[in-house]
């Protein structure tokens, strides 16, 4: 199934470029010691951009909840219905979230709370996106 392909912009391009190198990065303000994702022009804590850079994450997290989509607004996904929509919390900062379809996990059998690790899948010839796999069911 062809998926919608992320179109990087000036702010998000470093993130998507890192995905192509199989690295998961988030923005980090070294004044505030604050991580943020998705990326923004300024640090949400201090409002400055001068100390806002990128930091590599552990690539580990846990499933904090999910939905199962049966009737998506995104037409490219219709043929995959129903499918899992899980939300991942990053291990080192659980308030940072990522999405996952948890490939291989049966629909509606999402092991909430389980540990996951990131890997990367292609959505086009020149773009990878993060995905997550369960490493320790709890």
């Amino acid at each position, binding site marked *: 199934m062809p*998926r919608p392909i992320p179109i990087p912009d000036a702010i998000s391009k470093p993130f998507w470029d890192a995905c192509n190198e199989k690295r998961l990065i988030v923005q980090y303000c070294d004044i505030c010691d604050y991580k943020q*994702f998705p990326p923004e022009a300024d640090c949400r804590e201090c409002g400055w951009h001068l100390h806002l850079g990128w930091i590599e994450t552990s690539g580990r997290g846990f499933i904090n909840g999910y939905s199962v*989509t049966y009737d*998506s607004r*995104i037409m490219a996904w219709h043929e995959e219905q129903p499918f899992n*929509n899980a*939300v991942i919390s990053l291990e080192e900062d659980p308030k940072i*979230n990522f999405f996952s379809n948890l490939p291989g996990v049966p629909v509606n059998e999402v092991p909430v709370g389980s540990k996951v690790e990131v890997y990367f899948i292609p959505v086009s010839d020149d773009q990878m996106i993060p995905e997550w796999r369960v490493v320790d069911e709890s």
Partner: protein
Amino acid sequence: MASQIHWERNEDPVGIWEHRGKVALVGRGHSAQTDRRWDGVSMDKTLGAKVVEAARAAIEDAGLTPDDVDGVVSSGGGQAWHISLGSQWGPLRDFFDPPYDSEDGLTYVTAEWVRRQMGLQNATYVNSHGETLWNLMGLAAQVVGDGLSEVCLVTYPNGNIEGRYHQNPSLDAPGRNQWTYPYGWGLSLQGYIFEQYARKYGTNHDRMAPFVVQEHANGLLWPYSYYAQHEPGPFTEEDYLNGRWIAQNLSIFDCDRPVQAGAAYIVTTAERAKDMKQKPVYILDHTESAFNPRSLVQTLDDTEEWTDTQARRSYAGSGLRPEDIDVFAPYDGFAVFTQYFLEAFGWRGVKRGDAHDFYADDISLKGPNPLNSGGGNMGTGRMRTVFITDPMEQLQGRAGERQVAIKAETAVTIGVLPINAGALAFSTVPD
């Protein structure tokens, strides 16, 4: 023509509203027919036509004439963040003759368009910066309280056009969609938050049934309800439980049905209200709130924190306590919103996680806890206006078959989203 005023009451600590009880709601009007959608052709059924019909009805309801109106406040598209129906679907078409020479009057309706189309020559204050219904009414209340308008016509369009709602065929995911579309994340948000809620409090989707069924029953008693006009049969618990999933834990019957309708209200000073046709409903307060999630997604924790904040502001602004509220109308555009607002406001002592037990008890229209006596969106369609009209009519004692059996002297209504909400407090007396 000053349109930009600092009107939102969204900074803590919110104090008692400076115009508490000095502003009143005195008229309401609705377009007679609530349609499923506009066909894009019939000029007597455009959103503009619906709003004009409603505005005339509201003016007449208050015992006024168009020449009495000295202000018009509108929400162009009826949605949060100033989104309009036209901008959502982006219809490409040749326009009609003036006044329909843009989308204004077709799929959104500005205050300027209403003034021009209705020939409201004395309307010197015009403001189209309202958003969803609660914010719009809050803006109008502040405008009147601040003396910018004495007789303010408030118009609210909410429409639907041909085609499926928000369907997106694109394989490109720019902007905000770059984070969501590659994973098929759409309505999943409300299903996800509800899944967290159900897990945290040990409940499940089916326990929503008594609430949604009751809302449908209430809505059938409102003449402008889409269901009263087009599907007047009963809606049963079995119907609800057989609803197809949209985004688990949301079924089709947890999602409001988009319709095409207009509504209008007259807001005036308490002094001027004394001479009008209807019993005034005094506005004790308006408060607003808007938030951003910490990361990609709004969580249940966010939802509870944000609705708690909105409830705290509302009580601080109106001076009411939970036990003071007779009529309570928390929004239900997705049916799950109601439980978050209900638990935050603590109406009838409902605490976090208690909503489904409360639904299982007695929320009947003639019982002690007539939640959403107007039927909400689930019982009337996606107009939202029953959330103003029903509390207003309950306090005026003219809700007809919907009139609640309990005392109806105060009301609180809140919507639209936990992430972007406004609350209004009403009373039969000014203080």
